[in-house]
Each structure stands twice: as C-alpha cells, then as structure tokens.
C-alpha cells in the first residue's frame, strides 16, 4: 500500500516499502507553466534530503528540485527527456526519479495530502 507525502518546496514522494518515486506537485506544475526541460540525476546518484537533485524548467525560469528524502536513484523517468510536458499533463503519474530510501524516518517531517492542501491554500493567499 503506497502513501504520498509532500514537501514545503512542492515535491511529492510516493512510498511503497523502501522504494519511492519523487516528482513535483500539481500546485508546482501549475505555478511553473509549460515544462520545457527536466534536469535529472543519473542512476546510482545519491540524493540528500533538503539538497537539490535537478531542476524543472519552464520557458521563463529554472526551478530547483529539492530532495524531500535521502536515497539512491534507481531509475529516472526517460519519457521526460523528449516530452517534458508530461509533467503538466499528469504530474503524479509522471514522476521524475525512483529511489531506494536510505532513511524512512525522514518521511515524518513531510506533510500528508491534507496538510499539504492546507499549506498550498495558505501559499496561494499570499
């Protein structure tokens, strides 16, 4: 049974056992607009919670991807190389990287879907 968590920098992580996929939230893809490039790490790279592991770019700007959790990259979503707009079409189905979690306790500091929804509403109000 998988569960999805969200970070304050609008990445999500969907966890199934010690495996997880990371992408950007619907709020993030809407704020960015049409995605024209996704800069992804390589398989085998280590990512560290709180540090950037790539970027998602719209025509206008590059937005860093911040790792919500730490782990080792086991797969990158190659479909995004030629068709980065898939992130706009369905950001939850089109995750960016798949990792093996190195410290599942890091999930405790993330938000669940309800808390994230409330967080986005407060962001949008600014």
């Amino acid at each position, binding site marked *: 049974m998988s569960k999805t968590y969200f970070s304050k920098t609008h990445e999500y992580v969907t966890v199934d056992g010690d495996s997880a996929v990371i992408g950007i939230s619907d709020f993030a893809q809407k704020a960015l*607009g049409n995605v*024209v*490039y996704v800069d992804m790490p390589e398989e085998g790279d280590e990512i560290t919670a709180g540090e950037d592991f790539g970027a998602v*770019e719209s*025509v*206008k700007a*590059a937005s860093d991807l911040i790792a919500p959790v730490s782990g080792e990259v086991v797969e990158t979503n190659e479909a995004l190389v030629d068709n980065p707009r898939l992130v706009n079409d369905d950001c939850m189905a089109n995750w960016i990287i798949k990792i093996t979690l190195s410290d599942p306790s890091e999930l405790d500091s993330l938000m669940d879907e309800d808390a994230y929804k409330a967080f986005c509403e407060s962001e949008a109000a600014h």
Partner: protein
Amino acid sequence: METIKKTCLHPRHVALGAQMAPFAGFDMPIQYSGITEEHNAVRNSCGVFDVSHMGEVLVSGSDAEKFVNHIFTNDIAGAPDGKIFYGMMLHPHGGTVDDLLVYRRGENNFLLVINAANIDKDIRWMHECAEGFNVKIDDLCDELAELAVQGPLAEDVMENVLGIHCADLAFYTFKETALPDGSALLVSRTGYTGEDGFEIYARPDIIVEIWDTLMASGKVTPCGLGCRDTLRFEVGLPLYGDELADDITPLEAGLPLFVKLDKPGGFIGRDALAAMKAQGLRRRLVGIELADRAIPRHGYEVLTPDGTTVIGTVTTGYRGISVDKSIAMALVSTEYADAGTQVAVRIRKKTFPATVTSRKFYKKSYKK
C-alpha cells in the same frame, strides 16, 4: 522604499487574469494565456503588448538636432521628418547608458523612447550633457502610454479594427494621426519582436480606449513581457541589462550598424569606441547552440570546450519557441567568437558542449 508604478492598463491586465510581476519599477503582465501561446500568436497572427512602462522624452529647441546627435551614436542630421533611428547613448568610456529610439518630428523636435529601467538615469544624463546647448528636455513618461501591435496581421488589425491608416507607413517611420473619433496619437512601424508591427503612443485614456477596441475585436492576443523577451531574443535583438549595460559597448554587442564613428562632430563615447576598434575588441556577443535540451540562462558561465577556463557569460538563453533548440546569446572572448567554434556552458553542476553561431536564430519578417 519606492512604490511600484502601474500603467493605465493595469486594471485590464488584472481583470484578464494576467500573471503580474515587478519589472523596471512597474507591476507588469508577464503572461496571460502562456508565454508559448502568446509568442506563437505574434509569429503567426497578431499580439498586443502594453509597453506603457517605456519612457518618452521630448527634446526641443534651436540646438535640438545638434544635441541629440551629440549624445546619440546614430546620425540623425538632415534626415527627413517622420524618420526613426535606433542607437545608443554612451558614457565617455564607451559603455552604454541606454539604447533608444529617436523619432524625428522636426529639426528642432525629437521624441526619445528609452527603457523603463533607465528613465531616471537617462534623464539625469541628458540634463548633464545639455550644458551649452539651447535645448529643452521634457519628461513625457506620465503623459504618454504605449501599445505595441505586432505580427503578420498587425497591419490588418490597425486598418480594420482601429481605423488607423498605416499601410503606407514604411519601416522605421512614424506619423501623427488620430482615431476615427479624433483622438490624437503617434503611430510608428516599429517593434521588438522580429515581426511586422506598429507602436502607438497616446494619452493614457486613449490607449485604454484602443486596448478595449482591440480586445473586443477578438482578433488579437494580449501578450505579456514573457514572450516579448523570447520573441526579441530569437531574432537577436539586445535587451538593456542583458546584452547592453553601463560596462558593455555597442561594438561588443555587435551593433556597429547603429554607431556612426565618422559622423561630423562625433558623439559622447566616440573616441573610446574608435580606440577600442583600433586595438581590437576583447569580447564579442555571439549566439551559442547546445546539442542537449539543457537550457543556458542569463549569468551562466561559458567555458573552453574542456570546461577548465571561463571565457564568457550567457546574456540571455532559452529553449527557443519558434526555434526548437537550446540557444543563447553570450558575451565571450574574441578568440572564441567565430561561428563554428566549440565552447561549453556550465548549467548547475554539469557542463554541456555548445557551438558558436549567429545571434539571428530566427529570421526577421519586417515589411520594409
């Protein structure tokens, strides 16, 4: 703290749901429907931009022609009235104070259109340079608003939606005319997109009236500053702050066509440019193209092909919209400035190979 300025069309932008952001001290629309859609509207049909943030200065008096020629790199002497010149104002050391358009209304009367970000600096500079000249320098920034109507269908829109007769207007000329209801305006065949098009200057209330007529027609797409930048970039037009700056000369920026080093009387900065030209330029503005999809952006480093030495900086870069490539303009050391030269660009943690190209990534479609 300085308060942010708003153009006369600000409520219209907000009502259209535009994404607004501060630009050069003004709260401006960045996009309405989306940068890509707006960009394509200008390339294929007609887009309308609120460019009321641009500054307008009227220079008049018996020395007006002499004075403008003294502070301006292009040569306006003896030109026919109704003609427009593009050029720069320079510091004595050759760096660029601003790039601007000069509209010749008469021998003693010139309208100077300057960048919003430089309004205060430019007007101060003009006053400093005016000593000994019999000229009057009037700041019209608050009295004039401006729209740009751009794209292959711009002439049709001007004629048939607005009733402004302009089909006979040649590229880089203007006329002072009126709407069918008598409202006065100045219209020029100019723009900043690489497409045919017009710019309209008028009192703010008239500009609002024109905007409303255009929007009601359904024939135009409202366009924000986001696509204004992608459009001008693809045809290699410079933006002050990116390709031109107080420490970048127009020769380095590849604009010698607008610098008349030999005009009688010279101009401020002329000697510095002539010396620089004689010695050979240290750096030049070039185009670069990446094979990868990664996007070079303003401020990123340009390196030798082996990635060890910094040889320049990206001034503007995008994933092109009309040109589906990752492209940039960059200021690089002259020894790497020839088309075909291999260089590299640092994008975050990685270095990507790139090739020097022409800055004209996309062909202009002016109607001359």
